[in-house]
């Protein structure tokens, strides 16, 4: 029986429930209510942030698949090749179980990439935790979360054989209890290999491939058709477990299948909301219907209800729309790789997502209205009271030299070797610049009429949460500028951007104001650097015990280095080289790590940024690199000029060098 409490427990408002009754022309049954609740969640529908996301620049001459069209955007890199890349978050699962939460986050983003027909090439991640120093219970918890997340990412990436070549790790108490785990994957494909998630052609069979379905991720689901006794409660794991070994063979099997374009009509990975999301989105994109029977879905546990099967978030599963008559191609390939491949239904013309269980209808919903017409909310925004301005104390609390040492020891600035040495960052023999420099540089093998050639891609992920807390608009611009700066220092020009918007509860006007202003800042800077947004992710309701986390619009940028001779790293190469500062030094210390670490004050104002001056600096650096004048290039970010100089001296692989500066 559908009661008001049950509707509320599904996160559906009374108004939304009326919309559902309007769409169906009747009351929904429990399975349909579950389907609407997951498809109209913020995570799937972006109902609170969608109006803001429209402000991102998503077009450009290299864009082959635009943001929002498919699972990931695709950008041309020349010679008939292209790259698909995207960043996604797994913040809340990682707070529950750091190892599996982070591991399944990596597994999920990899699926979004190879579902586009691309061979995954590398991974990046951006991690944020509360402070790990000291012996307080909170610090110990943060260390446990930090260690669990890193080893979870290492486990999944290392086992599946995709190198994690770069990223960033930040520590700030605004992330206490709510770590941020943003993972990026980039894949390579030829233009003719692009696969889309469309269920076209009535009568075409719908295949379910990959791991069996269990009750994974259902602990969050508010309802079980059986009463939720204590006993049945614990057979609902609170956590999805990733199986990287299974996903590796799923990649090989899928890419082998995609080499038969005549057999494959559409592909979609089962991410959040598993079977529900993949079926209705593929149908909706093609303005078609889809009909499946849950009795044919491979299941890992006995007696699963339709509600549980449709909402299960078991990992490593894909939905494939096959051309009628070519079913055997799919069965043979998946048999070779010892994977399940079950025909569970077919495409229909009536635009309805119809779900049966042993023939009996358990859900019947118009696919388009479910997938694309979630309610859109225009939340109220109001500017929070700005933080006080940081006034440099007359007498500096410590000697400059000691301040530098303390800054270099601060976890956010200190070397991340302990992290990236747990990631296999060399597999696929493509990593030209290993972690520890401004941007990772990876070579991409491509076949050309003249034989094997290499493209060189640079990638970096950045965001300074302090700045965004002080001024989300300027902070958003700086996040993009810093990513572009890192690319320029490596000799690369920007191609495209993907962003992961990590914010607090949108129902609080101050949080929503931060989201809006950050999006506007990121959008303006992406337009300025001609690096269109190819897609990304929104994660809201990120709260620490003290309130919303610092607004964190993580920005990842991918660029291309036209000539391998231009590949540049950040560390000084040898004595006698001159050191040049390009661009002027700012004045204030508002929002600086000096203010926070040494003076213990997280205060403003946020540093100013002049995008025109910024791109002029990038142009000068790139031109100098192209003329062979540059041995190394590094950007000033957290800790300013002093830390930047120190990093240039000590971050080289072999002997360290010194530097004298007037």
């Amino acid at each position, binding site marked *: 029986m559908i009661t008001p409490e049950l509707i509320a427990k599904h996160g559906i408002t009374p108004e939304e429930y009326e919309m559902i009754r309007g769409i169906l022309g009747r009351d929904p049954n429990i399975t349909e209510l579950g389907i609407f609740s997951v498809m109209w969640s913020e995570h799937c529908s972006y109902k609170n942030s969608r109006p803001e996301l429209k402000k991102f620049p998503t077009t450009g001459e290299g864009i082959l698949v635009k943001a929002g069209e498919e699972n990931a955007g695709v950008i041309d890199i020349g010679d008939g090749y292209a790259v698909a890349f995207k960043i996604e978050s797994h913040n809340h699962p990682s707070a529950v179980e750091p190892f599996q939460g982070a591991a399944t986050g990596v597994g999920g983003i990899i699926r979004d990439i190879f579902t586009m027909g691309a061979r995954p090439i590398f991974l990046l991640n951006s991690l944020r935790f509360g402070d790990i120093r000291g012996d307080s219970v909170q610090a110990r918890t943060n260390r446990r979360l930090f260690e669990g997340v890193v080893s979870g990412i290492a486990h999944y990436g290392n086992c599946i*054989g995709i190198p994690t070549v770069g990223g960033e790790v930040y520590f700030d108490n605004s992330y206490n209890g709510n770590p941020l785990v943003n993972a990026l994957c980039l894949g390579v494909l030829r233009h003719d290999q692009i696969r889309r998630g469309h269920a076209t052609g009535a009568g075409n069979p719908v295949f379910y491939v990959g791991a069996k379905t269990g009750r994974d991720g259902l602990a969050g689901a508010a309802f079980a058709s059986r009463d939720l006794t204590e006993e049945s409660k614990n057979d609902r794991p609170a956590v999805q477990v990733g199986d*990287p*070994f299974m996903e590796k063979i799923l990649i090989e099997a899928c890419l082998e299948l995609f080499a038969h374009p005549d057999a494959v009509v559409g592909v979609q990975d089962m991410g959040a909301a598993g079977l529900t999301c993949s079926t209705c989105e593929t149908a909706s994109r093609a303005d078609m219907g889809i009909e499946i029977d849950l009795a044919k879905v491979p299941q890992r546990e006995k007696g699963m209800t339709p509600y549980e099967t449709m909402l299960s978030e078991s990992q490593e599963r894909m939905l494939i729309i096959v051309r009628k008559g070519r079913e055997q191609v799919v069965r043979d390939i998946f048999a070779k790789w010892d994977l399940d491949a079950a025909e569970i239904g077919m495409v229909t013309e009536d635009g309805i997502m119809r779900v049966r269980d042993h023939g009996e209808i358990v859900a019947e919903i118009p696919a388009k209205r479910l997938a694309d017409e979630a309610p859109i909310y225009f939340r109220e925004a109001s500017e929070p009271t700005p933080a006080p301005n940081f006034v440099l104390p007359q007498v500096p609390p410590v000697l400059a030299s000691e301040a530098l040492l303390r800054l270099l020891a601060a976890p956010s600035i200190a070397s991340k070797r302990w992290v990236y040495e*747990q990631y*296999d960052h*060399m597999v*696929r*023999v493509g990593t030209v610049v290993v972690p520890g420099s401004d941007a990772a540089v990876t070579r991409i093998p491509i076949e050309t009429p003249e034989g094997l050639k290499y493209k060189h891609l640079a990638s970096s992920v950045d965001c300074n949460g302090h700045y965004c807390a002080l001024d989300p608009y300027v902070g958003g611009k700086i996040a993009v500028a810093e990513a572009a700066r890192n690319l320029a220092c490596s000799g690369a020009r920007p191609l495209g951007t993907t962003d992961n918007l990590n914010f607090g509860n949108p129902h609080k006007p101050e949080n929503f104001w931060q989201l809006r202003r950050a999006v506007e800042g990121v959008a303006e800077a992406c337009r300025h650097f001609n690096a269109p947004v190819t897609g990304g992710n929104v994660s809201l309701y990120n709260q620490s015990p003290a309130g919303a986390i610092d607004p964190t619009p993580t920005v990842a940028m991918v660029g291309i280095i036209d000539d391998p001779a231009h590949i540049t790293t950040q560390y000084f190469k040898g004595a006698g080289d001159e050191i040049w500062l390009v661009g002027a030094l700012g004045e204030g210390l508002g929002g600086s790590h000096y203010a926070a670490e040494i003076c213990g004050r997280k205060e403003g104002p946020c540093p100013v940024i002049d995008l025109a001056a910024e791109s002029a600096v990038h142009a000068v650096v790139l031109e100098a690199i192209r003329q062979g004048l540059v041995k190394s290039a590094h950007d000033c970010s957290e800790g300013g000029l002093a830390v930047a100089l120190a990093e240039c001296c000590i971050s080289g692989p072999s002997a360290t060098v010194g530097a004298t500066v007037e």
Partner: protein
Amino acid sequence: MKVGILQFPGSNCDQDMFHVCSQVMGLQTTYLWHKNTSLESADLIILPGGFSYGDYLRCGAIARFSPIMRSVIDHAKDGGLVLGVCNGFQILCESGLLPGALVRNQNLKFICKPISVKVCNTNSPATLLAKTDSVLTIPIAHGEGNYQADDSTLADLETGGQVVLRYCDASGTTSSISNPNGSRNNIAGICSAMGNVVGMMPHPERCSESALGCSDGLVVFESYLECFSKSAALA
């Protein structure tokens, strides 16, 4: 010399090995799928790095029962050349082609970094062209590379000159500081009593091109080519 590279479902470095053997060394190279039994008359069999069967139970524990391994064991018994790298080395130990076992790293963490190793014996097929006691920089990437064997096996390895590579520091001295994973006697690579089967944890295929920063690993592949052409001349 024809090269056969084993492919298990969980292998990750098979494509890297293929790249170095065919593109860099220009050798005729083929993949050998673990469910088959034919080695397709390959002269050098390479068991690449990766997680063969998802590394459940123990690294290589399940892979050793693949049909292809029967043929590899026969190939080795007939004196054929076999090279196991990282997970390949673990499979060779599990299947009894090499003594001892690889257990969890002492710090319980996966380690991926370039590391110095000393060439301890230059008449193994993998180090024929290297200079004795020379120091090579070759990356390691493993979570279970801690070589263990009982005292008598260890003594036989040392006296029989079967230790091929040892972890050391840049100047070539072996000590517990320069030992990344707790391996006994800093062992990084060994060969069988007959010398034709070699297993090593470091990945030579990851440093065979200067474009990737270091080419110290090339000497391993060149040594195999040299060893093959010399034995072919004798036959």
